[in-house]
């Protein structure tokens, strides 16, 4: 896939050529991105070279336990060129007695949390990582669950483990002896609260800065999220999110289930917009199986993706209003949302956990009356949005709260791998639906909402525009619904795709959501990884919140629109 813009346009395959230490370049699965194999020693220089060759977005960083029973595991890194969504990948093979790899934290700050997740779930140690602690599991957890050798039974935490603080190789967590630490709490190494609280130039006086714990129980954090804030008066000088309270080991559960049974589990990952994870999974699965979905199914997938984008943004809108103190937008948004949820229940059978997409199409055909009533609703959508929006967009108090607040710079977006409306609000003109179309998006035009200043208000404006655009797209798809079957012929009931891997991305309401499916030829996936956009978006919080006032923290976080289910899985 060659880009047609820019002076130095190289194909993804060319991007991997000539890099020292990179060998065996082959596609990642059928029709997938070129993937080169490299060694831990050559990893950082290869990644830097790929970044310099234009692939500046770190899309995927994860591990796959030893394929085909060969032991050890494989690290996989995927890089994306934002301009045309071209991707390349690197794989590093590690053996069980040498699970160490250099960290690429210096190239992308967003690699930090991703590497922590791999350490947590696989036990790979990243040399040079500033803060290698567990991120989704509790700090005293023993073992690394996503290894095949880890048996799933009980709670996974033995009685002895509860009393033991894990200090594995490369970790640098505070123990009870560290001054200022609280018993039972392990702080990340880089976040010494008293160092953060100390005045520059006067380390003895700790009295000016305040440590505030926001969450995990708080009426305003969206989901169970915990953030350490170091405050100097009213200004935030440091912020650090902690999550993992909603970890349900979805990825491990998927490895035990048949392919079709993974769909309801993935619904629960990003539970606010379940269709997107389902769709990414289905696209990857169809690529592996060599199955194509029918035209009618393509259009139906677009309809449901856009409608669930609307409901997800409705939820965000309700939260934005509530965060700034307006009580009523919450109610209006949820009233409007009901009609879409009723439509979902009529066609798919459920309001939230749909389990509707199947390899080759969708489970049931859409009823004509349901389609007609949804068309009628979508035609009045702009007017009902005007109602909701009149409460906030033009309201002077809202504007004073949101404009100029929570600025996110382009550099931070590139560095942390931020995608979705957050990136588009700062001028990044990228949208997977338009740049790398899937389902019926190559037949239905998508106008991407863009803003330039990157503050909370711009993120608000971008999402409102996206809601209206989604309604237009869904209406166009429903009105142009082709005839034909809703699922491809000849798809076997019991799915056993040939061995291989596939990675497909979709544009979810939070950003670029990708699903990596690795198959070993059996009836269950060998590895199923969800690339969560909210995970990368949340970890830009330290850069986002620095310099904010206390009263702005909650609206700024609300504008990031996180869903903890997707972050923790």
């Amino acid at each position, binding site marked *: 896939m060659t880009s047609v813009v820019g002076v130095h346009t190289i194909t993804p395959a060319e991007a991997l050529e000539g890099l020292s230490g990179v060998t065996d370049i082959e596609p990642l699965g059928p029709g997938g991105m070129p993937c080169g194999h490299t060694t831990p020693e050559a990893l950082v220089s290869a990644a830097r070279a790929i970044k310099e060759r234009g692939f500046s977005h770190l899309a995927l960083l994860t591990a796959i336990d030893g394929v085909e029973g060969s032991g050890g595991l494989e690290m996989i890194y995927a890089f994306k060129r934002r301009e045309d969504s071209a991707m390349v990948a690197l794989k590093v093979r590690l053996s069980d007695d040498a699970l160490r790899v250099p960290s690429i934290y210096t190239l992308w700050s967003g690699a930090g949390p991703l590497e922590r997740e791999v350490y947590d779930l696989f036990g790979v140690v990243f040399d040079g990582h500033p803060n290698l602690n567990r991120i989704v599991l509790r700090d005293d957890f023993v073992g690394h669950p996503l290894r095949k050798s880890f048996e799933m039974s009980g709670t996974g935490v033995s009685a002895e483990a509860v009393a033991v603080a894990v200090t594995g190789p490369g970790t640098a967590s505070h123990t009870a002896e560290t001054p200022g630490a609280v018993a039972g709490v392990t702080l990340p190494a880089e976040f010494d609260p008293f160092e953060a609280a100390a005045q520059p130039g006067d380390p003895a006086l700790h009295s000016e800065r305040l440590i505030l714990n926001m969450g995990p129980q708080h009426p305003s954090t969206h989901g169970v999220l915990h953030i350490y804030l170091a405050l100097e008066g009213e200004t935030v000088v440091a912020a650090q999110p902690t999550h993992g309270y909603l970890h349900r080991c979805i990825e491990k559960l998927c490895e035990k289930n048949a392919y079709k049974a993974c769909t309801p589990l993935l619904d629960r990952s990003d539970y606010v917009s379940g269709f997107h994870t389902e769709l990414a999974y289905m696209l990857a699965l169809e690529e592996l199986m060599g199955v194509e979905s029918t035209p009618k199914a393509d259009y139906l997938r677009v309809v449901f993706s856009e409608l669930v984008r609307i409901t997800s943004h409705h939820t965000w809108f309700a939260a934005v209003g509530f965060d700034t103190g307006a009580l009523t937008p919450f109610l209006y948004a949820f009233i409007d949302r009901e009609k879409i949820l009723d439509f979902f229940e009529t066609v798919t059978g459920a309001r939230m956990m749909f389990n509707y997409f199947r390899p080759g199409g969708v489970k*049931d055909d859409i009823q004509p009356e349901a389609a007609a009533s949804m068309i009628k609703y979508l035609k009045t959508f702009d007017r009902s949005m005007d109602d909701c929006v009149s409460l906030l967009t033009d309201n002077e108090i809202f504007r004073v709260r949101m404009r100029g607040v929570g600025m996110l710079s382009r550099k931070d977006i590139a560095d942390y791998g931020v995608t979705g409306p957050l990136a588009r609000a700062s001028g990044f003109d990228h949208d997977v639906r338009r740049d790398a179309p899937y389902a019926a998006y190559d037949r239905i035009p998508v106008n991407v909402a863009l803003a330039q200043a990157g503050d909370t208000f711009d993120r608000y404006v971008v999402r409102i525009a996206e809601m209206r655009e989604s309604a237009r797209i869904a209406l166009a798809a429903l009105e142009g619904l082709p005839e034909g079957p*809703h699922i491809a012929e000849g798809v076997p009931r019991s799915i056993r795709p040939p061995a291989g891997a596939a990675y497909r991305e979709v544009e979810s309401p939070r950003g670029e959501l990708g699903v990596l499916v690795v198959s070993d030829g059996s009836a269950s996936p060998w590895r199923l990884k969800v690339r969560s956009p909210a995970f990368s978006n949340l970890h830009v919080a330290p850069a986002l919140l620095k310099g904010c006032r206390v009263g702005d923290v909650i609206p700024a976080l609300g504008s990031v629109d996180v869903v903890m289910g997707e972050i923790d899985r």
Partner: protein
Amino acid sequence: MIGMAKGMVTTLKHFLRPAVTEQYPTVKRTLPERSRTMFVLPLDEGGLPACKACMLCAKSCPDGAITMESEKRADGPGRVLTHYSIDLGLCMYCGICVENCPSQGVAFTGDYERATADKGETRVVLFAADPSAAPADEATEAVPAAAAPSPPDEGGGAE
């Protein structure tokens, strides 16, 4: 303050319109036909469950919520169902059991009011050939075949 005035006009408009609240349980909704709700084993003309005891539902349930027992049929090949129960506390209402069943042996009823305060009541026996042998839970039976829901879409599945 023009923007603020716009907002006040909207709120006033909603104040003058009727509220959208449906006062449950005085007003109850009928759920759409495809809604995934409480389970039932439809019966055939002879009053016996249509279930062929192929165990496909139990094997494909992602949560392992289904427990069934069967014995060899006395008159010919195949098996006959003797006990079927679902642990609603484990069930996630994904509908895979209903979708995979080749003989419409399990279906949804549309009943969504199944909340209980007793965890012991979550395991519901849907069929027991010998009721005295079954645990003294709620036993839901007897949806006559005539009332069984229409067959699920066969969407191109080859066996």
